Structure formats: C-alpha cells, structure tokens
C-alpha cells in the first residue's frame, strides 16, 4: 500500500512536532484521534508554538480543512442515502487519502449498491486511519530522544512544502501560493497568525481571479 509509506512518516513527524512544541502525549494523541487531519494539525501546533491567540489558531487550522466540505459535497450523491450514524462515521474518517480512493472507485462504477460503496469506503480508511494514531504515538514518544543537531524543527516546514508542491497544478495555484508567501513575509511584524490570515484570504481571491481570467482568455 503506497499510502502506508506516506502516513507513517507524517504521523511520526506530527508526534515529534507536537512534543517539540511542548504538548504532552495525551494532547498530541487528542489531536490525532479527534481531528485526524494532518495539515491542520501541523498548522495548529505551529501557531501554538508561536503563541498565537486561540481564535487565530482555530480560524487558520479550520481554513486548512475547508476542502473537506468539498469532499463531503462530492460524496453526497453516492453515500447520501445511508443512515445518519453511517454518514457520521464516513465523515469522521474522511481524509484526503480515503476520499481520493473512494471517489475514483465511485466514478468508475457509479451503479454499485450503497452497501458496496460503504464497504469500499471502509476498506479505503483501514490502511490510513489506525496507522495515523499509532505513528503519532511513536513520534511523540521517540521524538524527545532525538538530539538537536538533527534540526527536527525543520521537519515541519519540509513536510508542509512536500504536501504543497503536488498541489501546484495550475498557474492560478502558483499565483495563490506566491501571494501567500509574499504577504505572510511582509506582514510578519503583526501578532502571530494574523498576517497569515490576511495573506491566506488575499491568496484565495488571487487564485480564484486568476482562474477566471485564464478561462476568459481561452473563451
């Protein structure tokens, strides 16, 4: 399973990052079990390490998860008829990997029954979610034993950049990323996290506008 290769190092790194930021084991596991969303967990921990205000931590980390609403919308035609508790489980386990696997399958075979689609979804979650908990726990426990020469502080930026690079699919994505970088650096003098919120909103608008502009030029 290729996902295993991605999830385990991610989980380890999150455990290490949480411990570096000064969280205890229960708090680190609280994140991985109650939130299970890698990018937003990293965002929250990084902003907490910078002592950003609680509301800024929450707003920024939730913004990273806005894409989950898109996933939810696109799964609804396939799984919307399931009973409420099953949809709640589907929602809890909805991560990039389980969504990507499931939607590929549903679009290839849209005529399958609801039970078959739910079974496929459960299968898509099983290689991802338990490993996330276990590897977080391992990283949080082992993290403290790693000496500072290994520059583990930089594991977080590298993880983010590595998640980011494959997302730069179009000129609009690149433009949004550049605006985000430029404004975040220019506004770094503001209280922790505030400059990032402004930069992120401006970057979203930039991405959407560039996309419109490119579409109009093609038309």
């Amino acid at each position, binding site marked *: 399973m290729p996902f295993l290769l991605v999830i385990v190092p991610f989980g380890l790194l999150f455990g290490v990052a949480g411990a570096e930021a000064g969280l205890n084991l229960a708090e680190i596991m609280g994140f991985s079990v109650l939130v299970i969303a890698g990018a937003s967990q990293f965002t929250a921990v990084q902003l907490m390490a910078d002592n950003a205000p609680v509301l800024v931590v929450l707003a920024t980390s939730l913004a990273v998860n806005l894409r989950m609403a898109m996933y939810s919308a696109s799964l609804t035609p396939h799984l919307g008829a399931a009973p409420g508790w099953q949809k709640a489980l589907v929602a809890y386990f909805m991560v990039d990997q389980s969504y990507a696997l499931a939607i590929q399958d549903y679009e290839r075979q849209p005529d399958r029954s609801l039970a078959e689609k739910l079974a496929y979804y459960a299968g898509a979650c099983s290689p991802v979610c338990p490993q996330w908990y276990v590897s977080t726990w391992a990283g949080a426990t082992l993290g403290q034993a790693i000496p500072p020469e290994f520059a583990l502080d930089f594991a977080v930026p590298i993880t983010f950049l590595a998640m*980011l690079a494959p997302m730069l699919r179009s000129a609009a994505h690149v433009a949004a990323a550049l605006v985000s970088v430029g404004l975040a650096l220019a506004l770094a003098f503001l209280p922790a996290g505030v400059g990032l919120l402004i930069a992120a909103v401006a970057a979203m608008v930039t991405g959407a506008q560039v996309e419109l502009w490119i579409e109009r030029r093609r038309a």
Partner: protein
Amino acid sequence: MTFTPLEIWTIILVLGIGTFLLRFSFLGMIGNRPLPEWVLRYLRYTPVAVLPGLVAPLVIWPSGTGGEFDLPRLLAAVATVGAGLITRNTLAGIIGGLAVLYLGLFTLP
C-alpha cells in the same frame, strides 16, 4: 508555548468538532444541492493559500536557529519543493528535502 491545558484542550475539541462539521456538512444534509460555482472556486485554493504563508517565515527565520537566517534550511526548502514538483509525490519531497538539509548542515561551514 504559554498555553494552559484548558486552552490546549479547547483548541483540540473545537478544531475536532469544527473539522467534523465540515466533513459532515453536505453528507448530513438531505438533498444533493451542488455548491455554487463561485464557492467551489474559492475552496479550491484554500490549501495553496494557507500552507505557503505558514511555511515562508519558518524558512526565512527558522525557529531552530533562534530566527537567524540559515542557508542549509533555505536550500532544503527549495529542494523539497523541487522534488515535490518533479515527482508529484509528497514522500519524495520529504526525502529530497531532508537529504539536502543534512548534506548542508554537515558539509557547509
């Protein structure tokens, strides 16, 4: 970090519940009303709008050096993006970035 345990658990719980509600949003509501196109257009850009701005200050003013600019860390960041762009693979980006980071840390003066 100067957060109290209460603040930390508040962040964890609110983030957990908020994330769940985002995931549950459309599945939980009846009907298959699709999102308006302009909303989707903004949502598409949230990850690439948030993550670069979060990382950029950490690359220029790393926490591990107390905020001093550090060449190995900058080169590692460039290598991570480069490897990630070429391979379209997150794990390859992490490995490339860590390789350049350690090469730089242990060989550059």
